[in-house]
């Protein structure tokens, strides 16, 4: 029966789901990195507000991509209930949904005391009134007293969300490109790399290049450089794994490594160019923040391209 084997890609999950995985990983890694920075490196209210609110926005947008892709939107209620984890402990979408929801809840609570102290939020008409409510004030003060607890609960759910984006693809056994332990690792490294890039943009563009943030920016640049290097090593391993694997893997390899978007777009401009830009920044430094900002934009673009091409290059070998 083997002589009739055909190779097929799927069209059930397209760029919508690639965007869901990208924004889920980026949003969760951004929140996690921001909170860990604030808790253990340097208390930084502005960074927390930018990281938490943009992270929640990314997680919301990503979740919306999944929601609008559903066949029955009303049935989503079945996985919002945390009890779903008892009924379906093997289903990563069930875990991912809970991670995302609780990440947003604890992330918002961690940022709430900073919002209450912020002049900016005190000037926004409706938000100003809501923040003045007694209940909100009480919640904010409680969260402020237990900020480490809120921070760690958000961080645990954030790391869960980041790993989940890879575990989800790994759970499909028929596709060799997806069904291997390298995928969660690759997606986790990529998510934190894009989060570093995003926070570098925030520090350079929104928080305006403050001299006191220089060590923090350098730390993010160095971490991003290491993460890009690790990502390249994982991709190098994937290249050889796919070359000499199953037929499904071999066809995926052909699809990826014969595609200019993957080769030039992702590996070239999404990894190698930012790697060398950041390497020079770390070793010799740049006179202007522009090269690092360019590198950050390229890393963010590369993060999406990775998930986009991974989604489209998953190959099923079927005996008909």
């Amino acid at each position: 029966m083997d002589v009739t084997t055909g190779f097929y890609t799927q069209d059930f999950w397209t760029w919508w789901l690639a965007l869901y995985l990208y924004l889920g990983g980026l949003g969760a890694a951004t929140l996690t990195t921001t909170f860990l920075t604030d808790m253990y490196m340097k208390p930084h209210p502005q960074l927390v507000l930018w990281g938490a609110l943009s992270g929640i926005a990314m997680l919301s947008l990503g979740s919306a991509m999944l929601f609008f892709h559903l066949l029955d939107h009303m049935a989503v209620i079945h996985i919002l209930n945390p009890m779903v984890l008892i009924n379906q402990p093997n289903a990563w979408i069930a875990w991912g949904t809970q991670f995302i929801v609780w990440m947003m809840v604890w992330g918002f609570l961690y940022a709430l005391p900073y919002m209450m102290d912020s002049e900016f939020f005190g000037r926004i008409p409706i938000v100003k009134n809501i923040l003045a409510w007694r209940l909100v004030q009480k919640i904010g003060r409680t969260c402020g007293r237990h900020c480490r607890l809120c921070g760690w609960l958000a961080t645990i759910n954030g790391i869960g969300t980041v790993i989940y984006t890879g575990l989800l693809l790994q759970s499909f056994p028929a596709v060799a490109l997806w069904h291997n332990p390298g995928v969660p690792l690759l997606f986790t490294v990529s998510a934190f790399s894009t989060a570093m890039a995003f926070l570098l943009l925030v520090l350079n563009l929104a928080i305006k290049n403050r001299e006191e943030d220089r060590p923090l920016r350098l730390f993010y640049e160095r971490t991003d450089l290491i993460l890009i290097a690790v990502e390249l090593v994982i991709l190098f391993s994937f290249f050889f794994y796919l070359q000499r694997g199953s037929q499904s893997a071999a066809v995926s390899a052909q699809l990826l490594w014969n595609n200019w978007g993957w080769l030039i777009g992702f590996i070239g401009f999404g990894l190698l160019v930012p790697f060398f830009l950041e390497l020079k920044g770390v070793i010799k430094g740049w006179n202007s923040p522009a090269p690092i900002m360019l590198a950050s934009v390229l890393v963010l673009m590369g993060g999406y391209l990775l998930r986009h091409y991974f989604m489209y290059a998953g190959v099923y070998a079927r005996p008909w």
Partner: protein
Amino acid sequence: MTHYAMVIDLNTCVGCNACMAACAMENQTPIWDNKWRTYVHDKEIGTGEDIHRRFFPRLCNHCSNPACMSVCPSGATYQLENGIVQVDEDLCLGCRACALACPYDARYEVTYADVKQGRAFFGEEAYRRRRPSMDKCDFCADRVAVGQKPACVETCVGSARQFGDLDNPDDPVAKLVDSGMARPLLAYLGTQPNVYYIDDLKRRG
């Protein structure tokens, strides 16, 4: 305990597609959108004059270790004690994870538009579906529950499809599987499928 399975003999499938038609009418599938619970592939194999036409019926393999069930976030995909894997349309979100998990391409979407079209096609009163969901073959579980065979087996003119109980050693299906003549597809993936095929290429030399 009953453990249902199907054996498909590729030597006797004549490609009449009666199984597809019977299944579509029995299970009210969205045929207007070319979506089927069972499908017969038509392929030419060989080179030069040594060529023949192969018909390859395909359906849900009702795996004992179903990947579609483990990825289903809401528990909409579940397994009966007799081995039949079913979908509860009320619980199904339609996230399509089951479709990606299935190695046998057994899943298809039933959209809001399909439900609307189904009411017009099969009749408002006769149409059973109420909500969109992912869908697939359920071995005609309602028919099997009252002692009938699945519609595709009942209608097969070449007797290419046989349905039986693997736990009954006297069942012809169990004998074919035990003999090793009927083999499952993609067994190496660990899904433990319960649809078996008798190869035609060996007999054709």
